[in-house]
């Protein structure tokens, strides 16, 4: 009985929820089935998505080549670079494991409990993912630092203190950033278990233990590997986190090593080699992904019809604890940053506001560019474009912004001055960096669109701009809004390449650093609040616009 039931329950979440890094058009195993016809077999057509993918691949691999070529080849890596590589892989693996495991009880509690403000809480819990890193670190230190709330409490209780500095700080920060992503993906897995399964379980008088065994564990087995991989990829290129909380050279990541090679040693050859190592990691991870299904985008609606049974007793307390702990962990740093910075917000110097406006304009431009590129890529992928198109879309995830920026600088220096390039390049690089996240949300939606309405549109001769206006944009508004919001928020908080290009027109994050560099720490806190607020507001406006 048990084995049979398991067979019944496993496949639904897999197919319904775990659309994956592999979005190949289904092979035509049963040709008479209409579903098999979603990918009309055509001669190769060049779609806008092919151009975007080619441009991306050229930009990312081409800039790497440009950097290597400029110095006449790659340099050997030092012992310390190899250590950095090991640490990078180790911390990414550990961060991903912890994020995924900790997310399970939180997602389960959110899936099976209903309480006032639940929707708002689910939204708020997503906030850390789009929080500018520098702001997040300020918040984490305020809570977990030596003088933070946690250690104050531990001291008060006569317990030993915990340190946020060193590798454990890097891990803590990565879990802080990625727990929201993991919770959302797993929550979707829970909600994809059809209500009938839970009804069947109830009719068979399953105890919570049996439900976990026959319904939940199979779902987790199919969802968790994808969650793990997503977080692992995000943590591979971590840079600023390790800079502030790493504690020392023991916690150097590859991206930090690239920065040092550029900035101080001016060893472009080594930087290019390290950039190549990062790309190799990306390719390795993508190959890994061929066997691991990654859950579809986390932009879709949160409240499915299925409500898993909510057991009482100690489990109720356990769920309450999981939700409260996650909320405290994810939200108190935000509150603390806000409390610290709010008082001086109104007296911030005018230049900060100008920089903020400039950053907003750049973020919106980046987001628009990212949305257009995302759309082109997703539509091409939905129409069965080659695997390379999707790989190109994933490439920015582990491309080094520094290598990208420097490569563009070298390639374009005869065409424009760095001042002219600074803002456009920053906008373009930020748009590219947001693509992988936007694509995760958009690809499944575009595939559904193609499967459901592709033939109808074709049969009515709905093509080109009319198709875009009447079919694609209205149907994909939600994931597009989500992708745009994510891109805008990530671009808003990015310090990135602009420091390399130099600009007499600083962005808000740059201004924040300038304030800190001028001893104005209180003003910097206020600028951090401004930065955080604008990032959230941009995300919210785009996301709302899509609904």
């Amino acid at each position, binding site marked *: 009985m048990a084995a049979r039931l398991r067979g019944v329950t496993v496949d639904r979440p897999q197919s319904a929820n775990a659309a994956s890094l592999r979005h190949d058009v289904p*092979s*035509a*195993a*049963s*040709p*008479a*089935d*209409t579903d*098999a*016809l979603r990918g*009309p*077999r*055509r001669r190769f057509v060049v779609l806008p998505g092919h151009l975007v993918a080619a441009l991306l691949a050229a930009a990312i691999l081409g800039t790497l080549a440009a950097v290597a070529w400029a110095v006449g080849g790659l340099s050997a890596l030092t012992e310390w670079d190899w250590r950095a590589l090991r640490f990078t892989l180790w911390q990414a693996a550990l961060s991903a494991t912890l994020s995924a495991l900790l997310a399970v009880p939180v997602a389960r509690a959110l899936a099976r409990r209903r309480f006032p403000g639940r929707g708002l809480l689910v939204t708020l819990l997503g906030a850390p993912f789009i929080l500018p890193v520098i702001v997040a670190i300020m918040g984490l230190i305020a809570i977990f630092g030596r003088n933070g709330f946690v250690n104050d409490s531990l001291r008060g209780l006569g317990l030993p203190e915990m340190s946020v500095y060193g590798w454990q700080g890097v891990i803590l920060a990565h879990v802080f950033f990625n727990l929201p992503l993991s919770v959302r993906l797993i929550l979707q897995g829970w909600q994809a278990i059809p209500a009938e399964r839970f009804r069947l379980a109830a009719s068979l008088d399953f105890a919570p233990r049996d439900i976990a065994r026959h319904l939940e564990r199979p779902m987790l087995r199919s969802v968790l590997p994808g969650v793990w991989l997503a977080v692992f990829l995000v943590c591979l290129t971590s840079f600023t986190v390790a800079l502030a909380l790493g504690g020392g050279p023991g916690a150097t990541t590859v991206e930090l090593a690239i920065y040092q090679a550029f900035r101080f040693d001016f060893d472009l050859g080594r930087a290019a080699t390290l950039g190549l190592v990062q790309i190799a990691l990306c390719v390795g991870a993508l190959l890994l992904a061929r066997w691991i299904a990654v859950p579809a985008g986390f932009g879709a609606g949160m409240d499915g019809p299925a409500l898993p049974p909510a057991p009482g007793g100690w489990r109720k307390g356990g769920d309450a604890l999981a939700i409260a702990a996650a909320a405290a962990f994810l939200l108190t740093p935000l509150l603390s940053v806000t409390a610290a910075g709010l008082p001086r917000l109104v007296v911030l110097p005018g230049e900060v506001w100008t920089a903020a406006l400039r950053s907003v304009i750049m973020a919106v431009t980046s987001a628009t560019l990212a949305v257009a590129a995302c759309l082109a890529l997703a539509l091409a992928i939905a129409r069965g474009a080659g695997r390379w198109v999707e790989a190109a879309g994933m490439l920015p995830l582990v491309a080094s912004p520094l290598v990208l920026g420097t490569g563009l600088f070298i390639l374009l220096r005869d065409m424009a001055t760095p001042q002219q390039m600074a803002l456009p390049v920053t906008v373009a690089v930020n748009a590219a960096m947001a693509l992988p996240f936007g694509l995760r949300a958009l690809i499944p939606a575009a595939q559904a669109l193609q499967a*459901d*309405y592709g*033939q*109808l549109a*074709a*049969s*009515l*001769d*709905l*093509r080109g*701009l*009319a*198709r875009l*206006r*009447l*079919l694609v944009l*209205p*149907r994909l508004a939600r994931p597009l809004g989500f992708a745009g919001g994510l891109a805008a928020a990530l671009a808003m908080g990015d310090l990135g390449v602009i420091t390399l290009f130099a600009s007499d027109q600083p962005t808000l994050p740059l201004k924040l650093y300038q304030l800190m560099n001028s001893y104005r720490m209180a003003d910097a806190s206020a600028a951090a609040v401004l930065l955080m607020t604008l990032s959230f507001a941009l995300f919210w406006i785009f996301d709302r616009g899509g609904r």
Partner: protein
Amino acid sequence: MLEFRDILLRQGGFTLAADFALPQGRHAVIGASGSGKSTLLALVGGFLSPERGRLVWDGQDITGMAPGRRPVSTLFQHHNLFPHLTVAQNVGMGLRPDLRLDRAQKDRVTQVLEEVGLGGTADRRPGALSGGQQGRVALARVLLRARPLLLLDEPFAALGPALKSEMLALLSRIVDETGATVLMVTHDPADARAFAPLTVLVEDGRAHAPCPTGPLLDDPPPGLRAYLG
């Protein structure tokens, strides 16, 4: 007249051959599950290309023509309407896919909606209509497009018996009005008998030339017999 000239279509390990001419009129398409009925329609609709052979409509080769350019209207099994567009917009696409309709065209849309008994629903969205009404919207668009070839892939399979016969009656009216040649996939022998004098049998990887529906169903070949039960 639609001619299948020595057509061979290959999809993975599956093949479908067809070499016959389809006269004007109504035709049912019958065959066991997985025999290739939908594949035949997809071939005519332009969603699949044959490996060999030509598809000719009234002397014109349409083998390589894009789906929307073919002299064909299709009613699919599902997803015949865009849920985010209004009824009038869905129907209006039959006139101009980009929906830039002039006064006269808009009047035509209103008029056709009246004709299929949907007056007053123009500004509603398909989600607000019943299944039968949704079928009527799709048929209204077929009427407006007035293409000489009409393909139906069991579009009414999900409707109850009464609604289905109502739809078939409306369909008959439209086909008579437009003089269209029809290919209708169906699982229901009664539908085939009621609607189509001729039937195309799809069996063993081949679509056969149409033959009279009654005799075919009265004395079906072994494969079809097993399927019909």
